[in-house]
């Protein structure tokens, strides 16, 4: 558990550095530190699949940021701007909302089960009763197409939308040149 806390502190510090530092290249690199420490946290909590996705996404974002910075400018000019009343007002509202969110999340986190101890209220019902109720040998199929049919419908809709998007972008007829 202690390594998780160390990584959390490192990522929070890197996040603050990324916001406050003047050189944008250093800012992009400290953003990368945040992402990679999240990836290590995923590995430590035994989610290697998420860690792989996180590493891929993080490398891509850092490369894109560095590419943009090399093409444009290094120096963050927004840090020197003077703050007026409106900026203080928005920051105050954000801080108020953050305090409320923190308080309610502390109250909500007390109700959650212990770390690494799932309650399995609904999943155990699927595992025990699913075989008799659905009579499918493959329980995964029973879950995705019967208990959670809406979820699969949403997945199919996502696929349909993406296909329509690709066909619209790459179409030949009716394209404005």
């Amino acid at each position: 558990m202690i390594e998780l806390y160390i990584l959390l502190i490192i990522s929070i510090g890197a996040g603050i550095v990324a916001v406050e530092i003047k050189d944008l290249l250093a800012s992009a690199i400290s953003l990368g530190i945040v992402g990679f420490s999240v990836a290590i946290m995923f590995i430590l909590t035994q989610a290697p699949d998420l860690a792989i996705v996180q590493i891929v996404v993080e490398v891509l974002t850092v490369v894109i940021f560095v590419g943009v910075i090399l093409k444009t400018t290094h120096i963050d000019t927004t840090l020197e701007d003077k703050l007026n009343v409106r900026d203080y007002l928005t920051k105050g509202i954000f801080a108020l909302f953050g305090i409320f969110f923190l308080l309610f999340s502390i109250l909500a986190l007390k109700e959650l089960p212990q770390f690494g101890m799932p309650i399995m209220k609904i999943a155990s019902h699927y595992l025990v009763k699913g075989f008799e109720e659905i009579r499918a040998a493959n329980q995964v199929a029973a879950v995705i197409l019967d208990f959670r049919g809406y979820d699969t419908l949403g997945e199919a809709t996502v696929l349909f939308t993406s296909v329509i998007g690709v066909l619209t972008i790459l179409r030949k007829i009716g394209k404005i040149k």
Partner: protein
Amino acid sequence: MTIIVKTITKILVGLIFLYGIYIITHGHLTPGGGFAGGVIISASFILLILAFGSEEIKEKIGYIYSSIFESIGGLSFLLIALFGLILGSYFFYNFLPKGKVFMLFSSGIIPLCNIAIGIKVSAGLFAIFLAIAATRFIMKE
């Protein structure tokens, strides 16, 4: 492509297609299902095009047909769910008789849903492949 690739493709493409159909129809018995089987079926079509090549007009016809089949798959999946609403009590109600475990005709509407998803996924992926392949005709103009 060379004659080796063409000969191997001729032998294998039917088997790959059949394997995709097997994965879809046995989705409720063995690992797999509509999504995985649809990808395998579209891979057999893509292998054919990669090995033998194609012309612009053929690709256009395939494009139209795959769009139609994609819509048919998605709509039939929705229709199965709606039949549950009409014949039973709620959306996605399993209205067919359940049958015996481990038989091909068992577990109600799950095989039908798998077939609908399989048609949809295979046609959708093939349409995407054709659209990306057709960019070379657009580039030429």
